[in-house]
């Protein structure tokens, strides 16, 4: 490949720039990862040094059989299959909210085991299939 000399110089300069830029971005990214979490998993809440006073999000599976309704208040358990956190919520549940599915709840931690939610978002997973297939899979699992 024939490049002119000035193109070669520009390329060298550019590669140098690229390397230094990626190093900077790597550091920024590492920092971002620490400071900006979209939601905490129950395990991450457990590992926190204190109980955060500001609004946080908690994400995980809604434990099967844990959803209870008391007047307008829902109580359920968010779990990552190791740690469990009890969530209290007052309001309407989104359509896709269900036991055994993922959800993200927004609100305040009263303590490390009790969460008072003001908003609930149902999280969808990466599986897409027709109902018949889902039923067949379910039956296969229970056999």
């Amino acid at each position: 490949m024939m490049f002119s000399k000035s193109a070669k110089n520009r390329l060298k300069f550019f590669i140098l720039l690229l390397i230094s830029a990626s190093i900077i971005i790597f550091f920024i990214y590492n920092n971002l990862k620490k400071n900006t979490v979209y939601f905490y998993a129950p395990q991450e809440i457990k590992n926190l040094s204190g109980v955060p006073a500001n609004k946080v999000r908690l994400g995980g599976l809604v434990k099967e059989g844990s959803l209870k309704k008391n007047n307008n208040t829902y109580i359920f358990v968010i779990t990552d299959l190791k740690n469990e956190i009890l969530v209290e919520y007052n309001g309407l549940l989104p359509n896709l909210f269900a036991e055994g599915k993922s959800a993200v709840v927004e609100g305040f931690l009263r303590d490390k085991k009790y969460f008072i939610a003001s908003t609930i978002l149902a999280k969808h997973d990466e599986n897409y299939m027709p109902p018949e297939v889902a039923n067949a899979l379910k039956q296969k699992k229970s056999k």
Partner: protein
Amino acid sequence: MFGIFKPRTFFNLASTSIFWLKIIFIFSIIIGLGLALVFSPIDYLQKDTVRIMYVHVPSSWISLLIFLIIGICSFISLIFRVKVFSVYAKSVAPIGLVFSLISVVTGSLWGFPTWGTFWSWDGRLTSMFILVLTYILYVLLWSFIKDYNSAEKITNIVGVVGLINIPIIKFSVAWWNSLHQPSSITLTAAPTIHSSMLAPLLIMFFSFSILSLIIFLIRYKYEIINFRVNKK
């Protein structure tokens, strides 16, 4: 070494191929829409809202792909001073902008019935928002800077720098806890979309790609003639 990218090659290609591309597009979009809206099954959880995915996912893919092209063209233009690559990038940018907007709008319209919110600042949604802003910046810079050479240089830089965002968007769902679901289609594992839903998705992607190519060829023709006229 850039012989096949000579302006004339593409210019002639544009004149002869648009007709056939239009015919292919019409056939594939009819099949794609038929499958997406009528013949594909509902999802076991999302029910009918899964049909929004057949517009949302191809649009997102194309908006990422087009920015990748803009970035690579800007890089070549910046380093090797092959001016025609800036013309390619300039012609394709508005298409990417429109598809990124479609991606964000249809995503919100899917999010409201599914998640329970139109918007949330998680990793994927935030990085996609930045992509839309980058597209807007890129297109506006071309139209606001009157001097061609300085517009070219500045937009090239925006194109190359904006490239950093592409892997961030792609891997945001793997790197961060996010509300957005992880990728269903990856290079390393079998897709987690049932084949009856994968078919309309891929056909819609094909149709959108052909449409992008048609619009690109038209815009490219305009830009090349414009380039020549301005030189007079």
